[in-house]
């Protein structure tokens, strides 16, 4: 009897020592798969909800979550630290801290990195990857441009102590008069000196600004989704392509063309990459780099011979807000080292129906996209056609991989965190 209760205690301790998302702990999908449609064998559960406008998220090796929130205008908590203490997959402990709105968050080594719309900060973590002092952050990068447009400073880190920060262009297409019908492009585009690209900084040096960093890649209008591919040792980014071809140049583009073009592009970057914004855009139907109408284009003239080609191209305006290379072992073989992409969903396809609001899987082979992308998870927005983005009940925004190989997806409408598992 004594031995038995001892064994029970030991077993209980053993079981609770498995945190959420740790290998060996199987969580059950919700009966309705959290309202999502997934490929056969996959299930989904709502891990957390009501977090506010949840943007990117990070998972610790213990399976705890850090979720970055925006839209409080620096009045509320903008990082949530979430724990599932009983291992059922549902978050049951929540702590909030940090006062700056923003999108980016990452756990790297013993630090939690998070960005506002101008700066990147970090917090020291203990050996359980918990923030030691939530009131004490270090400023890593400061003073980046924020002019009300493409202001999110999404970032990622490599394994060599570097930090890669998106500085989005504060413009649609570098017109002399932004978003004004017929206005031509500035030549050269002065925005590219301080924005419209990815800047590289040191991950451990304090108070860096423009002069301390390097423009790693240019000609990128705005990047929200980016990931360091550890296998290829290379930075991959998803560009948000330009808006309003029809509104600004109605003689050259009809509404349908304007909804579909230009492509949302994946780029495999290297130091010095130039992806061509604002001078050219990529047309995924003609499979060509097309001269932008602001710079003498007519929808057909090609341009930018020296400009890097995208690694993959997707329909226009779907707003890729996260890319994640899957390195787990929970999902079937075909997903390993391929990319998941969260498409936040369009607004610039109006009056045509909107598109996106789903998570896509892009197969990779030999380090390159291989084969057509496929919809992996959909149903975030709710039933029926989405005519305007305000109708969407949820919008996928961030992606993260749990230590057990689960895929986490954040939603920035209602602050739901979905967890996708594979059980067959």
């Amino acid at each position, binding site marked *: 009897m004594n031995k038995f209760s001892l064994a029970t205690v030991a077993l209980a301790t053993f079981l609770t020592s498995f945190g959420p998302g740790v290998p060996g702990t199987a969580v059950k999908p919700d009966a309705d798969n959290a309202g999502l449609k997934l490929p056969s064998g996959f299930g989904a559960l709502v891990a957390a909800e009501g977090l506010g*406008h949840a943007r990117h998220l990070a998972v610790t090796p213990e399976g705890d979550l850090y979720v970055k929130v*925006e*839209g409080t*205008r620096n009045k509320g908590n903008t990082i949530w630290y979430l724990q599932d203490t009983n291992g059922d997959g549902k978050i049951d402990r929540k702590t909030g801290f940090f006062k700056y709105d923003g999108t980016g968050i990452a756990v790297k080594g013993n630090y939690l990195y998070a960005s506002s719309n101008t700066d990147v900060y970090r917090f020291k973590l203990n050996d359980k990857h918990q923030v030691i002092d939530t009131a004490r952050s270090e400023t890593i990068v400061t003073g980046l441009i924020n*002019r*009300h*447009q493409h*202001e999110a400073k999404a970032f990622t880190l490599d394994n060599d102590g570097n930090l890669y920060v998106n500085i989005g262009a504060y413009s649609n297409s570098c017109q002399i*008069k*932004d*978003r*004004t*019908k017929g206005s031509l492009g500035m030549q050269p585009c002065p925005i590219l000196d301080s924005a419209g690209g990815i800047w590289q900084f040191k991950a451990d040096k304090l108070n860096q600004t423009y002069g301390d960093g390097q423009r790693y890649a240019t000609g990128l209008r705005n990047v929200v989704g980016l990931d360091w591919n550890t296998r290829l040792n290379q930075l991959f980014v998803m560009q948000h392509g330009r*808006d*309003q071809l029809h*509104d600004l140049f*109605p003689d050259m583009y009809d509404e349908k063309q304007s909804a579909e073009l230009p492509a949302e592009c994946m780029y495999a970057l290297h130091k010095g990459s130039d992806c061509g914004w604002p001078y050219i855009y990529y047309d995924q139907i003609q499979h060509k780099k097309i001269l932008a109408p602001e710079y003498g284009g007519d929808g057909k003239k090609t341009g930018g011979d020296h400009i890097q080609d995208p690694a993959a191209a997707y329909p226009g305006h779907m707003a890729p807000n996260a890319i994640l290379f899957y390195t787990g072992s929970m999902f079937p073989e075909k997903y390993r080292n391929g990319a998941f992409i969260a498409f936040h969903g369009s*607004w*610039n396809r*109006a*009056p045509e129906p909107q598109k996106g609001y789903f998570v896509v899987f892009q197969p990779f082979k030999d380090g390159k996209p291989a084969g057509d992308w496929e919809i992996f998870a959909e149903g975030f927005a709710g039933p029926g056609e989405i*005519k*305007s*983005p*305000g*109708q969407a009940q949820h919008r996928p925004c961030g992606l993260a991989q749990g230590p057990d190989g689960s895929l986490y997806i954040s939603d920035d*409408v209602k602050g739901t965190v979905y967890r996708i598992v594979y059980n067959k």
Partner: protein
Amino acid sequence: MRIWMIAAVLLGSCGVALGQNTTAASIARGKVLYQNICLACHQADGSGVPRMNPPLIKTSFVLGDKTKLITIVLKGLNDDVEIEGEYYSNPMPPQAQLKDQEIADVLTYVRNSFGNKASAVKAAEVKVVRAKIK
């Protein structure tokens, strides 16, 4: 006497028709302008884009002070806008190239669509605001 009465009736109905026509026609013209200039950002149903482009549905910006509303169209807007606890940050380009009557039409359309009900904006009102901000 008879002629006078007929003339009065004619004039009266003409006046009424003209009055209705003015607002209805302004809304109709405004709708076309809205579709060409405003819809991409503010959407067909006026709901805008969450946290980027403000909604135009029953907000104080749309239903309130006309001078302020006309000024936004003429000068654009590059400030954060708060509506019901949400912040909208995308800049709006100025639309000063539009004629007084066109601005009056599009605003009359917006103030009488998407569930909104408010008085028409007149070209003369736009003219006054335009003169002031120059």
